[in-house]
């Protein structure tokens, strides 16, 4: 009896303690008993940071999401929906013949109180002298950087890389020389990571809130130049917290539980949540999302029969992309143009060429094309011209469920055209390693993000030389397509002055014609700028049906592409 009493008392005591703990912790909302960032004044985002936050180095790929844009700003920004550059830290920036002239905006201040000047711009560009700087290839072509007050004039040794340089202007974050003067070597450029970076942006890093495994906290900078100069509305959220991602499933839970305001993960079935008014998206109905990059079928063009453009065309014609778009993605994505050029680059699409050289889904026509060019059917499957069986392997990173479903659909639709494809399961690292070294037949891939110029897309497709040894291709031309003419056109495009619109048009036309004729890649669909937002705490989100046509993403590089406008236009509920 005594033991029963003892057990009961112990149990009751434990329950009481647990109840006290949980009631203290759970009585949330704005009245949380623990010191907190008030929820009603805090914007919570997620979907960018996978794995721990590496720190505050804007030159490595894993820096705190939001740092470039919220803290360290760029000279220009780019609006992909309007296709226009936005003057930002620069009052103006552009080409003057073969020289690039930047006029720094006056009244911009660093968070340490010092004025942002032309010298700071020169300092930042000159960090490119280190071999580990991503713009080192552009810096080596710089002849002189002349600073005169707020004007910075850059002259080049040879013909400028017009497109790459312009791209740099809205991608190079301005970091404070006070902190960055410690960078004296290429190695130090990679290890630079101040606890609280000095910036010019609308927010500063709240160092006390930083937890590399969980979140980064930004606090509003009340002295932000853009609000003072009425260049931009002052952002309403006092704090922004970007949470580390663990999985799409966890993100879905967090969105449904009201933890996150803006989520940038791919969430399967989000169209149903939109229909139930649980979340909103940029478009209220299909395609729901803006387009971020092109997903394509990447053939290894060095292997037979994929080295034959006719076979690649037949393969392209066998792709039932419509099925992938409607059944796999429930119309969260759009089918790609045969050029693969993103919708924001529509103005570059040569419609006559698309009509002439584009491809359409048609398994019967694909069969006929192969037969016409000497491929023979045997037992329902095509053989090579030499009579050998064709059996291509196709892989996607294991666990990428949407791509796995698409892969299965592709296998089935190719089978209808008599092309045998076998699924090969590979984890991401094996998949990436095999892709880089050319150990594959077919992969589904998407490498080049939305940008200000289709040159980044062409550069990715046609880049030469193809590296055949060591780690192989590390950033472009994974299809290992060797076309010297196309590569020359890509280089020429980069060296064409932006006012030479006629030549730019002609070069883009040629490059897309080559793509559609030779199909080194088979464009399939456009992956979305995955973005779903809730209105529990913040309203006035961007939408295609409003004047707020901004790209709702915290992804790296996207805050400069009007992502910051999303934040500055939010209203407290």
């Amino acid at each position, binding site marked *: 009896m005594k033991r029963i009493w003892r057990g009961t008392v112990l149990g009751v005591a434990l329950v009481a303690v647990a109840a006290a703990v949980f009631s203290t912790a759970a009585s949330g909302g704005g009245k949380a008993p623990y010191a907190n960032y008030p929820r009603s004044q805090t914007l919570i985002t997620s979907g960018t940071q996978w794995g721990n936050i590496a720190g505050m180095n804007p030159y490595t790929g894993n820096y705190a999401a939001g740092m470039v844009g919220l803290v360290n700003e760029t000279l220009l920004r780019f609006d992909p929906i309007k296709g226009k550059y936005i003057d930002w830290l620069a009052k103006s920036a552009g080409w003057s013949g073969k020289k690039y002239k930047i006029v720094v905006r006056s009244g911009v201040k660093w968070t340490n109180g010092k004025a942002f000047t032309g010298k700071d711009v020169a300092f930042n560009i000159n960090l490119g002298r280190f071999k580990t700087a991503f713009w080192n290839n552009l810096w080596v072509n710089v002849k002189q950087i002349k600073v005169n007050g707020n004007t910075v004039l850059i002259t080049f040794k040879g013909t400028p890389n017009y497109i790459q340089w312009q791209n740099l202007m809205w991608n190079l974050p301005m970091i404070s020389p006070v902190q960055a003067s410690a960078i004296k070597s290429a190695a130090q450029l990679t290890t630079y990571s101040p606890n609280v970076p000095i910036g010019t942006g609308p927010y500063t890093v709240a160092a006390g809130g930083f937890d590399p495994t969980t979140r980064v906290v930004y606090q509003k900078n009340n002295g932000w130049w853009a609000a003072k100069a009425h260049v931009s509305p002052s952002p309403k959220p006092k704090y922004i917290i970007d949470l580390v991602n*663990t999985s799409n499933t966890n993100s879905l839970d967090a969105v449904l539980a009201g933890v996150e305001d803006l989520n940038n993960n791919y969430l399967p079935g989000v169209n149903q949540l939109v229909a139930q008014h649980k979340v909103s998206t940029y478009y209220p109905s299909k395609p729901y999302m803006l387009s971020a990059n092109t997903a394509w079928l990447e053939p290894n063009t060095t292997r037979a029969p994929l080295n034959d453009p006719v076979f690649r065309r037949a393969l392209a014609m066998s792709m039932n992309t419509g099925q992938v778009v409607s059944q796999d993605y429930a119309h969260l994505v759009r089918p790609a143009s045969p050029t693969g050029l993103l919708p924001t680059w529509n103005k570059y699409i040569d419609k006559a060429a698309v009509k002439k050289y584009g491809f359409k889904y048609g398994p019967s026509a694909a069969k006929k094309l192969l037969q016409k060019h000497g491929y023979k059917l045997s037992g329902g499957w095509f053989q090579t011209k030499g009579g050998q069986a064709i059996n291509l392997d196709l892989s996607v990173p294991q666990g990428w469920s949407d791509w796995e479903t698409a892969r299965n659909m592709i296998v089935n639709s190719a089978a209808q055209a008599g092309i045998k494809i076998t699924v090969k399961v590979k984890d991401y690292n094996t998949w*990436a390693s095999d892709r880089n070294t050319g150990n594959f037949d077919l992969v589904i891939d998407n490498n080049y993000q939305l940008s200000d110029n289709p040159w980044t897309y062409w550069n990715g497709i046609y880049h030469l030389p193809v590296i055949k040894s060591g780690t192989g291709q590390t950033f472009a031309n994974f299809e290992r397509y060797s076309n010297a003419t196309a590569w020359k056109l890509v280089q020429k495009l980069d060296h064409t002055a932006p006012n030479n619109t006629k030549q730019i048009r002609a070069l883009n036309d040629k490059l897309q014609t080559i793509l559609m004729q030779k199909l080194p890649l088979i464009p399939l669909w456009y992956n979305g700028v995955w973005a779903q937002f809730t209105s529990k705490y913040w309203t006035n989100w961007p939408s295609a049906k409003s004047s707020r046509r901004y790209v709702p993403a915290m992804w790296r590089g996207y805050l400069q592409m009007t992502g910051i406008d999303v934040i500055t236009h939010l209203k407290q509920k």
Partner: protein
Amino acid sequence: MTRYFLRKMVIYALTFVVAVTVDWAIPHLMPGNPVNTLMGRIQIQDPKVAHQVYTHYMRAFNLDLPLWKQYWYFWVSLFHGDLGTSILQFPTPVMSIITHAIPYTLALLIPAIALSWYAGNKFGALAARHMGLDNTVLPLGYALTATPYMWLGILLIWVLAVTWHVFPVGFAYDPTAVRGFDWPFISNLAYHWFLPFLSLFLVAFGGWAIGMRNMIIYELESDYAHYLGALGAPHRLIRKYAFRNAVLPQVTGLALALGAILGGALVTEIVFSYPGLGYQIYRAITNEDYFVIQGIFLFIIIGVLLANFVVDIVYLVVDPRTRIGMEGGRA
């Protein structure tokens, strides 16, 4: 006794060397190259610059050296207490990642292992003597012990967090909480700790309860128990002896189960976005972060070896036959 411990120490030392070698070899023999993953995040447009940056990182991580040299440097660094630098979170030291993650994992593991073992054994012993309990609650134990940790975690989140909003969906603390060493923040930590703890506890509890229930039934049917009964010993005394004998395999089972429970903790942390070692190792494996994989597994190896050593000592205490046997006597 000294000989016994010396022999054990030699076995543990050999196990350590082999385990650490495997720990080093597995990530290094994985296909792919972690620097490529890092390069993919930087997105450099120019191949010459890409090559420069690639070479820089390969040198920084000693990955440009032959494998035997990398292995040698690994042991040299280990004896200097240097576990290297994370590739994914460059330039964060691995030790800093581990020291940040370890409290979370220990906070889950120690209570889950200790409480599930204690409560499972008590409950199993109780169920063995009560037919009603044995037929009603114990089947739940079978279901629990057969439940994958991950699945139970997802189920708990869905029901208690997403649907009923009773508990948080994940993380170690509320995203808006300001961290501090005070009661409100500690209670917030406990609130976020409870569900991952519960999923670990429930699965392990089922296993211990079933094991103990079977052992008690076996012991109560053994000759010594019948003999004691025939002598007129009270049931309580018989049950006490039965429990003491039945608990021995459970102690051995605890040593064997440590690895499985640890594995369960790793997946549980992933499900709950709980930033312990499991979550870190998952990220490290998917990104081929060699040094973080090595560092965390090293800690796990040391932890499991130490725990086994403790169990060995406990066994000496709870089983007099072992103790007497080692002292040269006969049980």
